């Protein structure tokens, strides 16, 4: 194994999550190396988003092992016990992971640049003027240099999502999570958002992307994971999973979306 010396950015071993009697995740095993892009695909309700939300501890896993950059998510190991992390420690971990939501979730009472500045200023305590400069540069990078002082309601869906990406990047994360970032967008606005994401991937950002954009997965992903009913059905390179699926369930799904 040539990779044995690099710590995976995301490591999941038999990750389970249940809500009462309902099992949303039934033993997920996967690994994302640093600088890699993984796309999670599958029908709705298959547990893709749930798994993504477990990675930054928005959801607590019920069993198994989940680690980001070598550290357990939500727990600290002491001897043969796992100690739950305090709120403050959980926040510190989350600050290292960027997340982009399907519904953008921009803060509507703040302008684009205020949205981008909020994290670094309140969480990291960075200097306001310096952060603002960085934020404007980030907005420029996502193609919104003319929308710096616009409120979210004054922006289109695609523009809002690009502000949301800039907001996540402002924290200088080592891992970016995308939860169906283009699903709420008009078809003609999808391209701009995907272009920004491609740029990020090319710059070496580690990304886990829940998506229905098979073209994006084929072009950008290092690995594609097909999930169904809370379990990984098939995983591999885009060519393997999208081009030559082995399982009937994968074939049936791809036949519908491609």
């Amino acid at each position, binding site marked *: 194994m040539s990779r044995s010396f690099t710590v995976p950015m995301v490591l999941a071993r038999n990750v389970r999550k249940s809500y009462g009697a309902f099992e949303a995740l039934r033993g997920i095993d996967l690994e994302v190396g640093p600088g890699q892009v993984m796309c999670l695909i599958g029908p709705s309700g298959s547990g893709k988003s749930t798994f993504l939300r477990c990675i930054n501890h928005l959801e607590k896993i019920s069993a198994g092992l989940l680690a980001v950059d070598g550290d357990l998510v939500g727990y600290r190991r002491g001897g043969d016990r796992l100690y739950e992390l305090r709120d403050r420690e959980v*926040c510190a971990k989350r600050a290292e992971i960027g997340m982009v939501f399907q519904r953008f979730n921009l803060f509507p009472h703040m302008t684009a640049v205020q949205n981008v500045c909020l994290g670094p200023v309140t969480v990291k305590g960075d200097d306001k003027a310096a952060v603002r400069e960085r934020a404007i540069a980030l907005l420029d990078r996502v193609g919104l240099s003319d929308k710096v002082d616009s409120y979210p309601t004054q922006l289109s869906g695609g523009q809002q999502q690009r502000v949301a990406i800039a907001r996540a990047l402002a924290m200088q994360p080592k891992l970016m999570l995308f939860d169906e970032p283009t699903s709420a967008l008009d078809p003609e606005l999808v391209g701009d958002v995907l272009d920004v994401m491609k740029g990020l991937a090319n710059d070496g950002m580690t990304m886990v992307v829940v998506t229905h954009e098979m073209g994006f997965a084929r072009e950008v992903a290092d690995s594609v994971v097909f999930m169904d009913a809370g379990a990984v059905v098939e995983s591999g390179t885009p060519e393997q999973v999208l081009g030559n699926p082995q399982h009937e369930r994968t074939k049936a799904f791809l036949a519908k979306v491609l």
Partner: protein
Amino acid sequence: MNDERAALPTVPVRHPGRWVGALVVLVLAVMAGHSLFFSDVTTATGLHRERFEWSVINEYFTSDIILRGLVVTLQLTVLAMVLGVVLGIVMAVLRLSPNPLMSGASWLYIWFFRGTPVYVQLLFWYSISYVFPTLSLGIPFGPEFFTVNMNTAVTPYVAAVVGLGLNEGAYMAEIVRAGILSVDEGQTEAAQALGMSRLQTMRRIVLPQAMRVIAPPTGNEVISMLKTTSLAAAITVGELTNGAKIIYSRTYEVIPLLMVASFWYLIVSSVLTVGQYYVERYFAKGALREMPPTPAQKLRAKFVGLRNPGGVR
């Protein structure tokens, strides 16, 4: 056919009922104006005087005792509202706490203070020294370090602030809770994903957005509080209504002095109404694509609209 129709003059619908209604209102208004300003009465003792005694109203309108009462009324309104808003936020957050003891305590507070008349509560705080003659700081059931005599500490003024504030807190708690619940859960998640703590999320993300829902009923509460402070007269606080009462119990000019007080309440609540508009406008920031116009802008738009009726307002 169409051309012919386009050339014909149109006759708008007539509304005779509106004219009759308007006439009735006009007559009533003239009658009210007449009895208010231009009529006299003869009393049982044969005295002839102005019906509403405007000279008396004028005489006492800016008298010392009334103005001092007005200041106390304003103080009570502000202090009780500040106490009420702070308590309301704390109780709303407790009410939404996952800890059943916390949310239970908040429920009990709201249940009690919303379920008893504020008049009774004021009398209760006024008489608090009957059940708690002293208030001490110390270890529960252990030694006491510091003791105050409640009879001297809880003056009528203090009792009024505490009573009105605690009562207001119960109402504000429900208003704040509704505001917090109105904020989309995605907002909290986005803030958490950035690594913000619970407190930061509440203060920077949830409460500012909740304010849009909280502000209108809170403005209502302020105006309501302005008038509710008149109940403090019952526990001998020298506020506006009490000031009027002190004068008319000496001169027997009851109605004119009640009108003096009423005019002051109307003036203050009018100012508050204008203030409320601007506060609501401020918190609408980001929720609307365009800010609603200020009254001055509205007037200007109307004026411009009158000059070119075809123009878009």
